């Protein structure tokens, strides 16, 4: 079993206009930097992107907004990106905002073969408009459907040729669920290790969910809010 490809271009082979992508990360933490750069170079247009955030103006998915390659975003929070807000308010960009836990669970459901589930999040709000609601044990819930993608693009810390992945700290976030929910799942890793080098007990994403894997280069790992405390 060898899922290793040379680079992001090779990993994204078959990607075309109008596809639905899931892109891992929370803010700029744990985003697939190499793949996003390759998406920009590919020029693919009319994309639907499912990602918790939309990057910042000049990094992350913000790069794909600048080039107007995204037709629709499905996210939970987009407050860090002015170009996003401009495109949304002007109607150039279609946006579906959904609660963060609902987004995570819809991805998980897509990867787990569960077409729908009930969650209390958003009951009585505009998020629930047009959706089935139901009462269980005296509490109200909203039915939400699974999300699946043509390409799921995730970022991990370490990976092996089987596609097994280990994430680092909070760079895990949405990556594991999105990895499960792709028709094709691309994983870019900081360190590609030989088969057998990862401890099976410590693997976060089993390789079965990953289609192609490559070792990324030149990670910038930008910090959005650098907060520190004084010594002593």
């Amino acid at each position, binding site marked *: 079993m060898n899922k290793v490809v040379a680079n992001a271009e090779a990993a994204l082979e078959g990607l075309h206009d109008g596809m639905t992508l899931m892109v891992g990360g929370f803010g700029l933490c744990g985003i697939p930097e190499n793949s996003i750069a390759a998406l920009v170079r590919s020029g693919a247009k009319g994309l639907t992107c499912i990602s918790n955030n939309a990057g910042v103006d000049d990094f992350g998915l913000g790069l794909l907004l600048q080039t107007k390659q995204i037709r629709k975003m499905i996210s939970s929070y987009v407050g860090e990106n002015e170009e996003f807000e401009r495109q949304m308010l002007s109607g150039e960009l279609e946006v579906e905002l959904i609660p963060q836990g609902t987004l995570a669970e819809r991805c998980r459901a897509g990867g787990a073969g569960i077409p729908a589930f009930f969650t209390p999040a958003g009951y009585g709000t505009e998020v629930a408009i047009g959706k089935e609601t139901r009462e269980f044990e005296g509490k109200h819930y909203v039915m939400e459907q699974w999300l699946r993608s043509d390409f799921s693009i995730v970022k991990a810390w370490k990976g092996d040729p089987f596609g097994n992945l280990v994430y680092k700290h909070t760079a895990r976030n949405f990556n594991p669920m999105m990895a499960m929910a792709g028709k094709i799942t691309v994983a870019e890793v900081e360190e590609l290790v030989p088969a057998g080098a990862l401890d099976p007990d410590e693997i*976060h994403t089993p390789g079965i969910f990953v289609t192609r894997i490559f070792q990324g280069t030149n990670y910038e790992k930008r910090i959005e809010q650098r907060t520190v405390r004084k010594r002593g």
Partner: protein
Amino acid sequence: MALTKEQMAKRIARELKDGYYVNLGIGIPTLVANYIPQGINVVLQSENGILGMGPFPYEGEEDADLINAGKQTVTLLGGSSIFDSATSFAMIRSQKVQLTVLGAMEVADNGDIANWKIPGKMVKGMGGAMDLVASAENIIVCMLHTNKAGESKLLKQCSLPLTGVRCVKKIVSDLGVFDVTPEGFKLLERAPGVTVEEIKAKTEGRLVVEGEIPEMVV
């Protein structure tokens, strides 16, 4: 005098109970972590995937792979754990996280809250707020009592799109502390120097004032 941000955070910190798992929202709620009383041990949950979140790192020790839900660099305490976003909201929806503290633009006297959208003006998204308010057993809202124009933010009915319905249990504003009861906002404490009359004048929703209202110790 109305409370400062720090005083509001300090007052909310007194609501913490030993052994609580707590989620602190972005802004003033985050400051609550600085005032956890002696002898009270709580575990901070950050919805991007941390239990046991520690303080900001020392300069030079920031790690881009370790941030909180406000995208700030943080640290991990001994005994902490990291998990994915689905697991994070599993512990929120199943009420394992016992207290949520978050900000609000408006609260209604039936416990409705609005804090994610101003139509046509500000649309940043709800993030995890809808999941948190729909599930938490205890929700404390930390907010300014009035807006910049001096209008009440404690209302009969929210005018902005809702984040959650009938969910807020307690409010700490810069003017006082309130329980949300079936009869409306029940005044529990006044900020130092703030009169009941001032609070009445600045509260649009139903306000319940019973007996002498003590002044808050800050």
